[in-house]
């Protein structure tokens, strides 16, 4: 299988037959793009869950405080 590789050395592989800039910049662009579109949604999800947790926590606190207030008013 290794003999089927079209390059005989690492230097030749990096050089891409003289088109190193074109070939490698496209693959780097792809890598960056791939990373962005997987990583950012995951990061965003974490953020959403964190915000939601806080919101629910305060809602609960608020509900408890509200109940305390209303009972306070009644008495």
């Amino acid at each position, binding site marked *: 299988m290794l003999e*089927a*590789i*079209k*390059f005989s050395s690492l230097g030749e*592989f990096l050089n*891409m*037959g*003289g*088109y190193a800039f*074109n*070939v490698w*910049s*496209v*693959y780097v*662009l*792809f890598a960056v*793009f*791939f990373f*962005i*579109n*997987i990583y950012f*949604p*995951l990061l*965003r*999800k974490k953020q*959403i*869950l964190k915000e*939601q*947790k806080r*919101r*629910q926590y305060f809602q609960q606190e608020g509900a408890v405080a509200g109940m305390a207030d209303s009972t306070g008013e009644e008495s």
Partner: protein
Amino acid sequence: MWLWFSKLGSPKWFYELSGKWLPWLVAAMSILLLVGIVWALLFVPPDYQQGDTIRIMYIHVPFASISLAFFPLMAVAGTITLVWRMKLADMVAKTAAPLGAWFTALALASGSIWGSDIWGTWWIWDGRLTSMLLQFFLLIGIISLRSALEDSEAAAKACAVLSIVGCINVVVIKYSVDWWNTLHQPSSPIGLSDESPNGPEIWVPLLIMIAAIYLFFAVSLILSTRNEILIRERRAQWVQDMVKREA
């Protein structure tokens, strides 16, 4: 059938199902991507005219072909939004627009870098390139339209209509290489028939890359759609329960 349809439209159902599918999709995507990229970079023979720039094709062609799927996808989602007011459809349409802009941009950029040496120019106002650039601007237009309208229901409707109209451009992109024969080459048939000018050593890795990038498209669309579901359904009991469980 109708029960299935209304179930499909439920964000909760989609969230749970996609959660089960995601690991498999990611696994299949990773394997195909690894095989495809190694094959494209190391084992594909250099083209007799283009030399090693042929390796750019394995990124450019999958991205360009999937870019064409966005408007039909958004149009179908938009139609469902307009006719059945299914919440999930609009969430998919909303997340598809920026992703489509990214895909289109990468298809344009990789093509431009490829052309800079092979055509001797970064850009030319050829039918294919121009219609593809138009698609990019249409997607930017849809994204800004949605963020400009405060009423989210009105925004959903406006974007749905624009997506349906924008499908015309997909037809123009598809046939542009046949209508205006300038620089961009027409697509070559892939397959075992005698018409195919390229051997399997060229198109098998291309098919693998197309499958891999399709899976990547599915994975990233699902990831962002799930985020959108969490945001819009945050008052729903099931989201609140899930957040509590994860806390």
